[in-house]
Structures are given as structure tokens and as C-alpha cells.
């Protein structure tokens, strides 16, 4: 059903978006695809920064004499941080892959390939700390 629905949309896209655009359009589309494919990474970085900031605030405003409360808040921040990171990562990767698929279907093959390469880099960067931990621990 989905495939049948998406066909007219794609046809429409074909009519509105030229397969071979001007240089400006190419440049715009490359920025777009970079922004899209790097989204999982910078969104995770943003969540990481927020989590770090919240933990610092937790430690700053709740004194050591109230450590149990400090720890409970820390656990809450960590749980929420991990869950939101998983959700954001899943959604952003799925969205990027969908867009890459659409680009490929409308004939923007090289942009789609760039998107895929960037996504592969994102996956590598994500796994890099785990691999580094094997050698530097």
C-alpha cells in the first residue's frame, strides 16, 4: 500500500525537481544532505552536553551531605539521557535514510551516496570510543 502511495509523490517530485540542477542547487542540496546525515551525531552531542550540564548543576546545587538525593537525580538524568538519545538516534537515522532513498529515486544519486558515506562516518564515530576503549583503558 505504501509503495503504491509513494509512487505519485515521486512522480510529482520528478516534475518539480530537476534531475540535473544548477551549481547553486547542487551546493544547496549538498548542505542539506550533510545536515541531514550528520543529524544523529550532532543531536547526540547536544543531548550529551545537556546531560553533562544537568549533572554539573546537580552536583553544584545539592551538597555532598545530601548525597543520596544527588545520586537519585544523577540516575534520573542518566536514564532520561540514554532513553532520549536512543529515541533521537533512531528517529534521525530513519529520517535520513528515508530522505536518501527519496533522493536516489528522483535521480540525485551522488547526493544520496554522499549522504550514505556521511552516515557511515556517523556510525564509525559512534563506535569509535568503544573501539578506543579496547586499546586505551
Amino acid at each position: 500500500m505504501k509503495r503504491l502511495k509513494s509512487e505519485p509523490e515521486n512522480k510529482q517530485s520528478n516534475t518539480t525537481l530537476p534531475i540535473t540542477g544548477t551549481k547553486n542547487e547542487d551546493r544547496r542540496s549538498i548542505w542539506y544532505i550533510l545536515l541531514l546525515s550528520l543529524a544523529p551525531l550532532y543531536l547526540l552531542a547536544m543531548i550529551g552536553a545537556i546531560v553533562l550540564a544537568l549533572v554539573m548543576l546537580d552536583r553544584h546545587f545539592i551538597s555532598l551531605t545530601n548525597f543520596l538525593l544527588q545520586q537519585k537525580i544523577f540516575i534520573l538524568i542518566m536514564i532520561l539521557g540514554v532513553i532520549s538519545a536512543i529515541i533521537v538516534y533512531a528517529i534521525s537515522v530513519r529520517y535520513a535514510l528515508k530522505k536518501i532513498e527519496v533522493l536516489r529515486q528522483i535521480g540525485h544519486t551522488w547526493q544520496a551516496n554522499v549522504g550514505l558515506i556521511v552516515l557511515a562516518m556517523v556510525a564509525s564515530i559512534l563506535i569509535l570510543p568503544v573501539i578506543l576503549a579496547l586499546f586505551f583503558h
Partner: protein
Amino acid sequence: MAKTPRSQQIITGFLIISGLLAFLYVSVSITVALVITYRPPKPITRTPSSPGLVYRDVTFLSREDHLLLRGWLIPGILPNGHLTVERTVIQVHGENSNRAMVLNIDAALARQGIAVLAIDSRGNGESAPAPSGGGYFEQCDILGAVDFLRSGSLPYPELGRPKAIGGWGISVGGDALIYAAAQEPAIKAIVVDSPYATLGEYMEHAFGPYFIFIPGTRFTSMMLSGIDYGSVRPVDVIAKIAPRPVFLIQGAADTDVLPSNMVELATAAEAAPGAHVQTWLVPHAHHIQAFNLVRNTYVDRMVTFFKTELSTESSTAIAK
């Protein structure tokens, strides 16, 4: 409609696997860090009255961060039956334990005329909940105990103040004692049983095949408690204790803290001019089991050490 190319399928799989591994790594690291940093304290089930000793409950504050700590002051018993606190030993238990850990040895020391201040270090027993510092934060607890003995409100005012203070630390308590003695000259002599030389190496040994989680655990612990466990290195400060004497005890069959730790610590301690270091490798003893395996010899050696090194004749009164 064009079929999804193989490259896209591979990259999708790569994204899923790397995401799963990364989140698994983070989750495990957080969990391990939480367990290492703080565990619910073990309840105290015995008191010094169990082995027939007189004692008083004491409370005092840790030095610098002012956490409320609890302990027992057990006066030494002189041959004529009188009580004394002239020589007082601060007893520091190991990880996830409490001041009742070695009550039998405390009793043996007290019966030999050596008073014992058995303390619950932070996050343990009845002391205030706080993150474990692998011995680093806990040094403030020992320093707080020294302050208490020197200027606090002692529960036996008629006995006066201690003239010589020593320390006896077990496992991570030994590391805390090394740190404390390195900066507090009022601690005249220490006995440390099974301390590690560096927490980083101890973690590597303890994590074993799961060593990959060490960096993540260290980072998370640093976020939670503000300490990098890799920087806890008693081996770097033990030389500062000289010329005050250090007695290192280690079980030869210890698989938690390997006997090589004692060698490392002893070598570092002996490097200082005027160092006075004794070592005792107890055959067949596992981690912090020497006092159970060879109790009488253990007590005899400790009593001889403290009676010699905490000689109240040579010590100047420290209560000022």
C-alpha cells in the same frame, strides 16, 4: 521503484550495530559506576560489648568536607585494669564494610593496652552517605578522626587525650590511611593490610575480561563523584610518611589485590630518606584474611609494632 542498493543496506546495518553497541557501552558503564561509587551500607550487627569491651559511641566531622562520621572509642586496658587512651589506633575498615569488621582484633589490641578508634568511613556503617573515593576521599575521614582525638570532645575526659596516634587500615582503608598519614604528621605509625598501589591497576585486574568498560566507568564516576579513579595512586605519596614507620601486610594468596602491590608500595616507601618500612607476606592468606588465618601472630606483630612505634615516652604530647 528502485530497489534499495546493497551499500545502503550495509550502512543501515552498520548504523544499527554501532548504535546498539554504543548505547550498551554507555548503559553498562553507568551501571558499574553507580555500583562502584555507592552501595547501601552494611548494618552494624555487633558492638565492642560482644567481646566484653567498654566503649563509647562517638561522632565527628571529616576534615574539609565536614561529613558526619560515627565510630567507637574503645579504651585500652592496662595490666592493672585501668583504662587508657595514651596510645590510640584509628582503625579503618575496607570497602563496603563497617567499623565492626575486625572487632576481635580491636579487642585484642585493647586488651594489650592500645585504645582503638574504630570509624565508619563515609558511605559505610552509620556514617553519612557519600561516594566512595577508593581511599582518596576517605583520607578526610581519617584526618577528621585525628582532629577529633586532638581537639574534639572525647567521651572519656578523665583519660586525657592520646599521646600517640597510629593507624590501621584494611584494603581500601589502608590506602586512605596512606594518603592521610602522608599529610598528617600526628599519625605516628601505620599498619596497612592489603592496600593497592594504584587504583587504575587494581581496576584493570578487577574488571578482567571486561576491561573495555574501564574508561566509560571512570568517566561516569568522575561525573558522579568528581574523582578520576585512575588518579588514585597511594604509591606516589607513601614516601612522604618517612621517617614515620610503615608496616605493610599482604596475603600471599590474595587474588583481589595481588602481592605485587605490596612490593610496589614497599619499594616506593623505602625510597624516602630515613624510611622505616616493614613488610609481612602472609603465606596462604587470601584478601584481608591474614587476621583470620594467623590471628595470634597478627595481633602479636601489630601490638609489638604499635608498642614500639607509638612509645609514649619518646612521643611528645600531641594534645595542645
